[in-house]
């Protein structure tokens, strides 16, 4: 057992036991309230630059398998749990979480009071921190934490987007496959978005976040999906520009960061939430039907929808926990976006129908042409 500590920028120190890789890992410390789905969370590129604390205390029970990945590798900075399971027990598992994190050089810490940490973050807000299994000089660590790059104003998308475009051919294909050509602007896309698009009948091509609107339109897609991704949306100016140039020309579906990109492209503002939404149990109300979906969420920023100057932009969904906006739509511009994750992975499948909605819009648009 090797010693490890978690130090927050306000000087709070948790002593625990290291697992995964050793070393020092800096990032914004956030908590995720999902009981299941640690493998998906670890491989979700949106966590780039963050240290994730699982509020559920028993982690690693079902190990790590080959299929439940949301990207090629983990992107988060560090991983915090109460108790790491010594063994795994599941018919699909191929290795322990400890082995997996070692392989990808992710620093983990276990044995700390994760509930106390979560409450601290809830009350004080998300803050920068470090997991260290090397340097135990507390004052020095706090100083390093303060100097480490924070999230606000930083473009993390460039770190996670694909370098080369590729066609998605994995998973969940249906007989409908290929009816719509969809370009996914990869700001850190989760595989489950691609799987769901494929399942809804889309032929999916994933392109780098730096791809311009002209380059995209040249590919003559039926629609564009602006993906999820890490960090501060306002810092990703090139994607905002791309979105601005696509709006009105082609059906657009934005998810999470993609939703924020649309909001900014439409002239609205975004702001940082105190401790963000990270979990799989958030109720989101459809303002049109009044029905509630239980959704997967992972965002630290939010779109201030009233700040959008266009009058024909409507707010479509609201989070019933804190009444923040969860979606927008403009029929005329053939675009809609949601702040939450309809692709789940991890989380409930209640909002999966949105992928069908996207293909419907593409279908109607094609008929008009």
């Amino acid at each position, binding site marked *: 057992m090797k010693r490890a500590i978690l130090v927050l920028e306000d000087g709070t120190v948790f002593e625990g036991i290291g697992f995964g890789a050793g070393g020092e890992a800096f990032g914004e410390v956030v908590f995720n309230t999902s009981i299941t789905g640690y493998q998906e969370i670890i491989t979700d590129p949106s966590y780039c630059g963050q240290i994730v604390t699982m509020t559920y*205390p028993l982690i690693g029970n079902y190990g790590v398998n080959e299929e439940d990945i949301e990207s090629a590798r983990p992107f988060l900075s560090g991983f915090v749990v109460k108790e790491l399971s010594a063994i795994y*027990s599941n018919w699909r598992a191929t290795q322990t979480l400890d082995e997996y994190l070692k392989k990808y050089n992710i620093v983990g810490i276990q044995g700390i009071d994760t509930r106390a940490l979560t409450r601290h973050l809830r009350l004080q807000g998300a803050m920068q921190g470090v997991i260290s299994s090397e340097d135990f000089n507390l004052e020095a660590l706090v100083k390093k934490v303060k100097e480490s790059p924070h999230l606000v104003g930083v473009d993390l998308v460039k770190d996670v987007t694909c370098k080369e475009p590729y066609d998605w051919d994995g998973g969940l294909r249906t007989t409908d496959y290929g009816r719509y050509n969809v370009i996914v602007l990869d700001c850190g896309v989760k595989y489950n978005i691609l799987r769901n698009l494929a399942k809804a009948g889309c032929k999916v091509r994933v392109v780098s976040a730096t791809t311009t609107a002209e380059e995209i339109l040249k590919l003559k897609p039926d629609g564009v999906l602006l993906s999820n991704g890490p960090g501060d949306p306002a810092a990703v100016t090139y994607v905002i520009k791309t979105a601005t140039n696509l709006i009105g020309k082609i059906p657009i579906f934005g998810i999470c960061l993609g939703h924020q990109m649309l909001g900014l492209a439409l002239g609205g503002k975004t702001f940082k939430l105190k401790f963000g939404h990270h979990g799989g149990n958030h109720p989101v109300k459809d303002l049109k039907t009044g029905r509630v979906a239980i959704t997967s969420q992972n965002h630290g920023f939010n779109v201030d929808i009233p700040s959008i100057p266009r009058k024909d932009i409507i707010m479509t969904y609201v989070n019933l926990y804190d009444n923040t906006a969860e979606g927008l739509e403009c029929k005329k511009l053939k675009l809609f976006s949601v702040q939450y994750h309809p692709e789940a992975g991890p989380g409930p499948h209640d909002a999966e129908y949105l992928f069908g909605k996207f293909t419907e819009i593409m279908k109607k648009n094609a008929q008009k042409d």
Partner: protein
Amino acid sequence: MPKRTDIHKILIIGSGPIIIGQACEFDYSGTQACKALKEEGFKVILVNSNPATIMTDPEMADRTYIEPVTPEMLEKIIKRERPDALLPTLGGQTGLNVSMQLAERGILDKYKVQMIGADRRAIKKAEDRKLFKKAMQKIGLDLPESGLAYNMNEARKVANKIGFPIIIRPSFTLGGTGGGTAYTREELEVLALRGLNSSMISEILIEESVIGWKEYELEVMRDKKDNVVVICSIENFDPMGVHTGDSITVAPAQTLTDREYQKMRDAAIACIREIGVETGGSNIQFALNPDNGQMVVIEMNPRVSRSSALASKATGFPIAKIAAKLAVGYTLDELPNDITKVTPASFEPTIDYCVVKIPRFAFEKFPAADPTLGIQMKSVGETMAIGRTFKEALQKGVRGLEIKRNGFEGIKYKDKAELEANLKRPNSERLFYLYSALKDGYSLDKLYELTKIDRWFLQNLKEIVEFEAKISEDNLLCAKQLGFSDRQIAKVLNCEEDRVRGLRKKQNVKPVYKLVDTCAAEFEAFTPYYYSTYETPFKKIGETSPTSVWRGGQGTENTEDEVRKTGKKKIMILGGGPNRIGQGIEFDYCCVHASFALKELGLETIMVNSNPETVSTDYDTSDKLYFEPVTLEDVLNIIDKEKPDGVIVQLGGQTPLNLALGLEKSGVKIVGTTPDAIDRAEDRKRFAELVEKLGLIQPPGGTAVTVEEAKRIAAKIGYPVLVRPSYVLGGRAMEIVYDDKSLEYYIGNAVWASPERPVLVDKFIEEAVEVDVDMIADGETFCIGGILEHIEEAGVHSGDAAMVLPPHTLSESTINKIRHYTFCLARELKVVGLMNVQYAVKNSTVYILEVNPRASRTVPFVSKAIGVPLAKLAAKVMVGKKLKDLGFTKEIIPKHICVKESVLPFIKFPGVDITLGPEMKSTGEVMGIDSEFGRAYCKSQLAAGQNLPVKGTVFISVKDSDKKPIVAETAKKLKSLNFKIFSTVGTAKFLADNKIKVRTIQRVSDGSPNLLDLIREGKIHLIINTPSGKIPRQDEIKIRSSAVAFGVPVVTTLPGANACVTGIEALVKGKLEVKPIQEYHK
């Protein structure tokens, strides 16, 4: 959608008496529903025959009918009350079945009552195996292969097609009654027949066995707008093959990936939609093949269930309350989450701890019962524990069970064969065999092969066992984090529990209390619902204090504790832990009342209990709830934290009472009767002194530690004698012994007397009338609550006896004597609170049998009979109020008659003799209330499931010593009521001698056709059969046991038979009428 305005009056049906498979969880759900609906301004009509429930308190509903829960009585109530709607989903399987009968008989249509929540179609679809299978196939869900059978021929055919082993599930039963697993053709013959007989519609499902698969449950809720949420997932420690009520279960599911969990969630949601439960909660069970993840649906309950009570306590989400509100039109997003206040109920709770539920069994009460666990539920209660890890929760759970275990421990076994057999065959001690096997070095793979318990659970057990060997004074925090109790640690360190406690405190190893908040700390929680855990400290750089123990030397170390303290005066109430035979819902009722009463006085109430089924562990009941084992260590820890002004131990039964001396020794203030007075009543020697001092009479007796000594005492006082171990509960191992030989056997084999465990030998007063008295005192005023006369003669445990209030055969002078003795005892013991005294009356001599200076099992019954909440008053006098000021100073003798009848679990233990004795065996009770004895008795029998006949054939067979005029009289009366009488030779001769014509039938042992055939053919309608001695003949057991299986009422005592006939007389004379409790006490 706001609440419906087209309905005003709602009928709620309770679940009746506590039985195996249907316990106080339905009082919890029903009480929540009543409160929720009243809060919304609806008129609530409640029906439940169980007086020991909070829901039947007169203020819980507008009209409360303590009447039998049968369609006939319900029709009368509906006719009288004309409700607009019936909510059928909160009263367990009983409530659901009766609702269905009302619907099917057209009664609901006739009186224009609509079912809300789930309608007839949905209930039928979920309950009818054929329709359920079709529905699941329609939505693409797999089920185990199966076929229906309506007779034995069909059963054989289906079984041959599927192949053994197979599961037999009767339709429309609860707790798996009548179900079983057949491994062979021979077993099929027995089990299929039993199943056909126990099904309401004589239908069984024969199903492919998925024994050994992983078992899961999801608790689902749906509203009118079709919003569906999953409240909780549960994974069973014991794999498929053990009824979930008998399994150790864990929340949330531990070994499913998100993909697998979401697939199950999707299936559950599809299931509730397809079945069509419009609003409310449902429970859906799944089995998963551990090798490839293949998932099948096992069953669905279209109502709140035991699991939903567990899920509510495990998550803080009040399923029953929300279900009631959804039923009247609200949607989930319109209702607030009580715990966070700011967020709505339309969410899925997420938890940041681990919950373990462990069932409590009572096989020691039924030595002849098969202790193998299968698909028919056998446990009588359960305890739940919350910890930050599975290991911690499991150990807390085990010590909360109160089976004299301090945590995860081992069991003695003879050889490997015995050990492995007990690992392979599910049984109530399997967990402890697992400990022993791990200790003996069994590998996880081997244990998995034997038990099919998931390796993840086994690994956790292994970690506990491995750490135990390493426990030292230097790793106490680690030990506590793994859930070890101070006693377990003391055993390893070879010292006293006290010393470990001291060491811990010195090292600052103290528990912290965390909140159950539905949201894993994402939002602030307002409801103070706590559990203990031992957390690793953390610190803030730069802050220092004198208590700093941080290893790094800089800053102050802290553990986070979420207990919010107020400046209010506070009283702690200790609950009774898991239900068991002898300590059930009655005590929880008293604790809940105490909490309500003290709140009325403006005091802060703190409840400590570990039973998830109860109203006391509803976070709404007390100001603070600590969901903790009721052990000395755990209670003292909470006291250290809360520093209450007083602790109440006399209301939760024997469990808290046993802690009284230990608590007092630690300086805790016990309010009410002093622990010393309690000890004077409980300690045999001190009790004898007390009786002598007051000049009262006790049956002669003595204490023995050897066989010889016991025989000497018996010789002196004369047989028969009542023998029992000292300090027992529920008459545990108590027996009446008639000769030296039986005495030798008893002491040598049954209890193993020793100097540490002496045996009490008392003269047994034969043919005496037993009397129970409940009284209340404040130190100045002494007042009788009620005097209850037992219907059965002395010798039947008071928990099993039928009783009548007011007494119906005792003379006024005897009653006055009883009153006088009771007051003398109370005055001498300086009782403050409740006291129960048991007397035996013979030839106007009044013997004292027992004094319990605490709440008794009969307090709720008496309270309902006289219309005064005794437990509430008791709580108030314990904190210093005077009865005079509370307005209760004079005994109330009601004009109506109340009969308490016990309900026995024999249907779950086929082949076990059903006769009553000094050892308590009943699980619950009912109340019959009417203007005269016959009718009240009738109602009590009806409520207890004994259908007294008004015509037909009665079988009478009594032992020789019972061949007395009373039998002849009983038979004569039956004759005059036009019953036919069948008897065996001896009894027939006796009756013939008394000029009563009966038909003689041959003994069972003489071959067919005999009584068993007649029972099977439905030709016998009542059986009066008194046992022929201590060791009854095999054929008697067969008769009584098959009567139970076929639902024929059986009476095993003469006074019981006499009461029965009086009841039948009343029934013949006129139909039973109904009347709400509110009208009795106008």
